[in-house]
């Protein structure tokens, strides 16, 4: 079956425009709540140890995704808010696809003393540098301004 009728009137409407309006509230979760409450007080991270898989999971979680065992309270550990760059990219466009005024260095950072990593922005002017293997540490908002979200980490800086 094909549509034999074609629109030939150039003034006929082609599209209907609209948006999707809704705001979202995401509780950080049982593990996330503990992780972010810690972050509001301290300049370090929490991770969880899975004894069965012999792995330190970062960020901290309620369960191990590999063996599916629940993590008991005593296996929560504090780790430094620092790590090593595993991979990075220099982004020149933003989430909307628009050109950014200043390119940003976005890195996948292996967090020290864990088997996990996180994404972070590296605060730097050195856009041509190879950051792989470079040590970085997190820079936080002042403690009284923290809200318990990822935005409490302002950026990472080279140590």
């Amino acid at each position, binding site marked *: 079956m094909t549509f034999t009728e074609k629109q030939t009137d150039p003034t006929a409407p082609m599209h209907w425009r609209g948006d999707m309006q809704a705001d979202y509230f995401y509780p950080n979760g049982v593990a996330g709540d503990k992780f972010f409450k810690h972050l509001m007080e301290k300049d370090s991270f929490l991770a969880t140890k899975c004894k069965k898989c012999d792995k330190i*999971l*970062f*960020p901290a979680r309620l369960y191990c*995704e590999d063996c599916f065992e629940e993590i008991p309270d005593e296996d929560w550990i504090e780790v430094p808010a620092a790590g090593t760059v595993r*991979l*990075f*990219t*220099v*982004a*020149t*466009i933003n989430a909307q696809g628009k050109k950014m005024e200043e390119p940003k260095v*976005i890195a*996948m950072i292996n*967090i020290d003393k864990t*088997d*996990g*990593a*996180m*994404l972070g922005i590296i605060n730097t002017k050195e856009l041509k540098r190879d950051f*792989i293997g470079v040590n970085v540490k997190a820079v936080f908002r002042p403690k009284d301004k923290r809200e318990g979200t990822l935005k409490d980490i302002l950026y990472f800086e080279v140590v």
Partner: protein
Amino acid sequence: MQHYLKKTNTTEEQCASVVVKNKKNAFANPYADYEAKITIEDVMCSEYLFKPMKRLDISSNVDGAVCFVLADEETARNLGADLIYLSGFGWSSETPWLSTRGMDASYATKAAKMAYKMAGITEPRKEIDIVEVDDRFSYKELQHLEAIGMAKPGEAAKLLEEGELDVKGSLPTNVSGGSLGVGNCLEATGLQKSLEIVTQLRGHAGKRQVPNAKVGIAQAWRGIPSGSGAVAIFGR
């Protein structure tokens, strides 16, 4: 991309030649929307969006729909269909946590393993005549060829340079033009690739026909939020 380039010693130029090949292949595909005659230099000179990824390493979006009708063998015969068998399929997902995920396309390896087992394929490189792998980004074509066992780790770029991935090569890959040439039809990509295999196996591919294609493999991928991949093997 950075991980793949480092790990396999593949260069940005080699990724660029994937783009050149696929956009050229697309000239022979009437459904393709992004056919172009370009050079490696054109790709290398396009602006960096996310270093090392350049504008032309990324496939552009396209609208489209693909439809398949499946039937059991007897029904299909009665309908007088030109029989193409779905002889194996597989799919697999990795973790959605960026913090713990791997970067070696293990989703594709696992999916292919499941599909090969079902199809009874033990030596994919020898038994499969034509390949359509996901190429939404240029390096992905090379990475996926290796992940599904059609090339050894780090070997794909060499095969590409030797012309083996061309229509007339020993491992014709993304003859349709792939996502880089046809356009990235998002969730319809897997069917676009499957359609190309079926068209080729039926000998209906016209100017881009791969001679004597009897077994073909289609692979699709999605990277966010989890790395997930699916593989389908078709045979005459």
